């Protein structure tokens, strides 16, 4: 993993809180109510994640990756059908005992530019 990429910002992605996708997600996480589950934020993160995982410059070996930590700060609930903008950046890259630690911070904003949720995902690229 290329530690020089700390701070890299990936291109914005647009993301819609799609009713069918929400229904599938709700079923998967066992939410019985009519709400958009707060961790639907993960789906927004995955609007950009493939571009990070597939970033040749970063050189992450996804076959050795495990998810170590996850944090969400919700500023307001998701609204069904709304369009959101997702921006991810590499917040930090660290090496410890041969393992690589990658933290990605993702901001999800509404069309007015207001924050909906901030996500921080830390992944470990285990020593080969």
């Amino acid at each position, binding site marked *: 993993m290329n530690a020089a990429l700390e701070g890299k910002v990936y291109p914005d992605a647009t993301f819609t809180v799609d009713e069918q*996708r929400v229904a*599938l*997600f709700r*079923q*998967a*996480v*066992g*939410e*019985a*109510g009519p*709400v*958009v*589950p*707060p*961790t639907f934020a*993960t*789906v927004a993160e*995955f*609007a950009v*994640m*493939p571009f990070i995982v597939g970033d040749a410059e970063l050189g992450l070996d*996804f*076959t*050795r*990756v*495990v*998810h*170590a*930590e*996850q*944090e*969400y*700060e*919700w500023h*307001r*609930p998701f609204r069904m059908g709304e369009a959101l903008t997702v921006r991810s950046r590499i917040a930090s890259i660290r090496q410890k005992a041969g393992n690589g630690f990658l933290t990605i911070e993702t901001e999800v904003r509404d069309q007015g530019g207001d924050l909906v949720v901030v996500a921080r995902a830390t992944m470990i690229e285990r020593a080969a």
Partner: protein
Amino acid sequence: MPQTAFRFEDLAVGDDVLSVSRVVTSDDVKRYADASGDQNPLHQDEDFARGVGFPGIIAHGMFTMGHLATSLTDRLGDPSGLKRLAVQFRAPVFMGETIVAEARVKALDPRTRTAVLDVWVRVERGGTTEYPIRKSEAVVGFAES
């Protein structure tokens, strides 16, 4: 433990306020992969999982976190009550296991009507308790009652 939504006034530091079990199946995990977009083969392909040192496929950390978050918001009766959730993934979850999401009140702020909860997810495995999620924290807010 009350079964109705919690009220801020009913909480005291040290109270155990949540215990929600769920059996994890490969169908659930496949559904989660499709719903979330996380198609890492570690969660779907037995041979791949064994090839990287696990005895079989494991659930996504986010599947387990999703169970925790959903259990909390169902208990709150209000998805907007969950303000922050920060977790550490410390052990895998295998198919067929029962995960239990639990929470204990750590701090209360009556001025902002906010509670900080210690949260974890445990699984009983081979006579010991493992913690797929531990040393983790939720911040929940309560509307004026």
